[in-house]
């Protein structure tokens, strides 16, 4: 019962902060977006790929919904528009892949919506599904990155440590690699392998750093406040435990 009330309070606080900051950030105040070297390198690699007409490979994860890590799949979908520039030429192009039919369908919707104004997105951006299970997906992506040399290989969403094989091959073939997402094991695995990898809650600030829209700035600010509150609560709980009050 207490846990229910606690979770409801956290939920209510998050909703309250999001609404308040949405109103404030729209009219009066601004929240400066912090610079992250890893995200800056991702943006640079994306621009360089467009300028050089080289291929970009965006992987949206294995599942849209993962019970252990809820929200990671939707966060990957939120990041996608940041990569959909009208300058993506059909020579280089981009493939936005996923391991789940629902992910691919959503990605296609977003791409179609983005390029409604006459741009033939089907030639420049493809949305393949390389395999419906983690272990069938990996050989599929491996053959894709072998056949289409890429300048950027970015991984988002929910995935497991099996992506290591793909990432190490992509690394060997060259190009920039960026990872933001995955299970805790895959984050540890990729930390040892990829220079630009986001860990933990950093994954969820990525839309805010890539897309300077109010809705993402609001999330960034709210997440920062909740992080500070959580840290304070943990420290207070530890102190209370040490003095035998808790």
């Amino acid at each position: 019962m207490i846990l229910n009330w606690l979770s409801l309070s956290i939920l209510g606080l998050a909703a309250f902060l999001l609404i308040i900051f949405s109103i404030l950030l729209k009219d009066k105040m601004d929240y400066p977006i912090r610079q992250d070297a890893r995200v800056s390198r991702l943006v640079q690699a994306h621009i360089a790929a467009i300028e050089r007409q080289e291929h970009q490979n965006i992987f949206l994860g294995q599942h849209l919904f993962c019970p252990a890590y809820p929200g990671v799949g939707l966060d990957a979908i939120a990041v996608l528009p940041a990569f959909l520039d009208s300058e993506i030429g059909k020579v280089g192009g981009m493939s936005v892949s996923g391991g789940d039919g629902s992910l691919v369908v959503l990605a296609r919707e977003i791409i179609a919506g983005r390029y409604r104004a006459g741009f033939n997105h089907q030639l420049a951006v493809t949305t393949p599904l390389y395999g419906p299970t983690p272990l069938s997906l990996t050989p599929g992506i491996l053959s894709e990155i072998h056949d289409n040399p890429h300048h950027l290989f970015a991984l988002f969403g929910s995935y497991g440590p099996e992506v290591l094989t793909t990432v190490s091959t992509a690394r060997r073939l060259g190009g920039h690699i960026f990872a933001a997402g995955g299970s805790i094991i895959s984050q540890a695995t990729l930390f040892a392998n990829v220079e630009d990898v986001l860990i933990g809650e950093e994954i969820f600030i990525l839309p805010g750093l890539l897309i300077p829209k109010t809705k993402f700035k609001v999330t960034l600010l709210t997440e920062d406040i909740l992080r500070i509150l959580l840290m304070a609560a943990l420290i207070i709980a530890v102190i209370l435990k040490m003095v035998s009050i808790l």
Partner: protein
Amino acid sequence: MKKMAATIIAVVVGLTVLCGYYFQAILSPVLRVIFDWFVLLLGAASLIGIGYLIRLHFTKLMRSQKGAFYSILLIVVFFLTMITGFVLTLDNPFYQGLILNVQIPVEASFLSIMAATLLYTSLRFVRTRGWTPMSIGFLGSAVASLVFNLGYIQGQPGTVGAALILFFRRLPMVGARGILLGMAIGGLLVGVRILLALDRPYGE
């Protein structure tokens, strides 16, 4: 109008599922219907996904692209497995044997490749990251965790040594919990953002 309808459906369904967490007894019949629809939609989306997969390989085959041979192999095996599954059903011993003796050994061999890759990349860790406080911390805690979890180093119960060993054994778990808490906050905000219709990833 289409966007508005999608937003209303998403918000109503999201709020109902959320309320169902707190008022299970009252909302369980509604939740069952929602989850049934969810599974149905997920199944339909999976079928569409498999359609994309087959189309991708057919295109490769038609254009005689690099790796077309593997596409033939994939298409043949896919249809063979699907037809066998439909005809024999999942309970058939032959079909079960096919899965157990082909798919599982293949997946196991793939896992062994992954283990070898992991070992190789662990050895290259410092070259990838350099000697930074983060990399030293990661490497140090990984080695300490491996050593302390071997069980060779034991302390007398009740002593400071035993408490320290327990502390080092638990340290990776503490880090993992920290990361999971951070991810939970992020996930919560993504959900609330969608419930408040601030973000519409399903049709923007």
